[in-house]
């Protein structure tokens, strides 16, 4: 643990019955850092977040935050955290402003103190004009932004965000990303779980790849891609694409994978492969740099999981 770390998790274990949900997981978050936790459904992301919040007791390991220990000092730690959970837990009977007021009271803040913050929080969430609207009248993106504003009511140093953009349309996601970037620029730290690799790549300084409760990779997004993948990907699909697997083309790629109807060629030298593909005009090809999605699928497998 570095002295500067805000949040440190060491050798965390969690079992539910016979199933090990989190297995020897360690990580830390420094000031101003955005740590992304990615992994398939059931990888243990949400359970990890719940343990970080003291909502679920670990079977082993330790969680330290801001010089305090979870779950012993759960209340003192949570007083300095902001949390957006996967499901919106906004109060349907309250307006946006009232939601912020009532939530601020849970932190022991005085009404006057909260009321002074409400206008800037609503402005941050682009909800100033909706101050008196109830959550039922808001779009999905607005609700998520209100949840984010609510998590900021106590001016936390660290935010825990569990899939903050799941279910949002592209515009709403971009607006959410912009807000999160702004928070990072202000020096806040973020722990983020996500299914979206573009989100992870855009926001996170560092990534943690979880599978079956275990950390299978950790590092900066670009470094991880460099470390685990060839730089170029050529996707080929269309009638007869599968026949390429038996053709000499296969030798032109370092690695070949199939997902659905598409063949993925991973290579450091795409030019030769693309040249050879001219002989198959009926096939459609897409040449692109390797990205986090490829990394994720390489590390966690392309097959669809039953629980997914």
């Amino acid at each position, binding site marked *: 643990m570095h002295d500067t770390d805000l949040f440190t998790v060491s050798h965390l274990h969690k079992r539910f019955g016979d199933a090990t949900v989190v297995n020897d997981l360690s990580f830390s978050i420094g000031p101003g850092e955005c740590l992304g936790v990615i992994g398939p459904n059931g990888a243990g992301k949400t359970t990890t977040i719940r343990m970080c919040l003291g909502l679920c007791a670990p079977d082993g390991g330790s969680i330290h935050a801001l010089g305090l220990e979870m779950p012993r000092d759960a209340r003192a730690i949570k007083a300095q955290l902001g949390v957006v959970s996967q499901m919106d837990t906004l109060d*349907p009977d309250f307006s946006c402003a009232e939601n912020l007021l009532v939530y601020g009271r849970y932190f022991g803040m005085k009404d006057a103190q909260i009321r002074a913050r409400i206008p800037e929080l609503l402005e941050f969430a682009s909800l100033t004009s909706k101050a008196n609207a109830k959550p039922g009248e808001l779009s999905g993106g607005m609700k998520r932004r209100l949840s984010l504003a609510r998590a900021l009511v106590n001016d936390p140093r660290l935010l825990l965000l569990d899939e903050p953009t799941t279910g949002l349309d592209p515009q709403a996601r971009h607006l959410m990303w912009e807000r999160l970037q702004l928070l990072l620029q202000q020096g806040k730290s973020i722990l983020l779980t996500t299914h979206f690799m573009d989100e992870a790549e855009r926001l996170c300084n560092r990534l943690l790849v979880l599978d079956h409760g275990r950390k299978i990779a950790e590092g900066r997004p670009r470094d991880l891609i460099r470390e685990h993948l060839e730089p170029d990907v050529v996707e080929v699909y269309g009638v007869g694409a599968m026949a390429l697997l038996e053709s000499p083309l296969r030798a032109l790629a370092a690695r070949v994978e199939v997902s659905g109807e598409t063949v993925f060629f991973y290579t450091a030298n795409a030019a030769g492969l693309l040249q050879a593909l001219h002989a198959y005009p009926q096939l459609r090809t897409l040449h692109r740099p390797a990205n986090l999605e490829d990394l994720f699928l390489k590390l966690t497998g392309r097959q669809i999981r039953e629980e997914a």
Partner: protein
Amino acid sequence: MKNVAAYAHSTRAAGQNPSAWRAPELSLRFWPVFLRNLLVWRKLAIPSLVGNIAEPLMWLVAFGYGMGALVGQITVPGPAGPVQVPYILFLASGSICMSAMQAASFEALYSAFSRMHVQKTWDGIMNAPVGLDDIVLAEMLWAAFKSLFTVTAILGVMLALNISHSPKLLVAWPILLGVGITFSCIALIFNALAKGYDFFTYYFTLFLTPMMFLSGVFFPLEQLPLAVRVVADWLPLSNAVLLVRPLFMDQWPADALRHAAVLAAYAVVSFWIALALTRRRFRL
């Protein structure tokens, strides 16, 4: 059960929370949760009040005046031997306890369940520095407060109808708050166990409705066969009625301490069970 035991053991091994049955961890952080419910209720108070008092008043008017005309006077035990009282007074003093019971139960079941399970309000609160124990305490006190509000409105109508003008009704008021507390504690046990709203129908039809008939609300307990009376004497509602009814007749209740102790015991034990079961539900 086996998993729960294994879980409790393993957490203890890691130096974590030992058991769902550990002592309650209560603090003043319950207050903002109570205020939250108050703020929602303030928006809906008047329509909800009409709903809360209309039914008990219908019972009172229909039974009290209708049956009262047939029954006339009814004999109840008093400190100086049996006393004759009008049936409507007998019924009013019992039904006010029943209303306290029902209002508290309804709030601690349907409304608390909506907040806990459907709206996930409790989950949101637990992301802030408020523990589950404080939330359960807030819900318990809130249901009791709401029941007191309903009871106060009904008492007001009873005064207006000239059913009783006993100054001892002022003492009945805090006792009815205690009745609300007892029944919200009991209801929270069932809230902790519920998978859906349907479950509460069982609680109402299998527990509360029989208790209404076995607690001396509509007719004196003395009417019951001895074997049934043995059970009835220990029901929380009959102890509540025995405390409140004499106050309506401007008398002090006999064995007041014992009845109060029975209610308090139900409240304390039920709250503890409710807390343990709720912690288990949230795996805390």
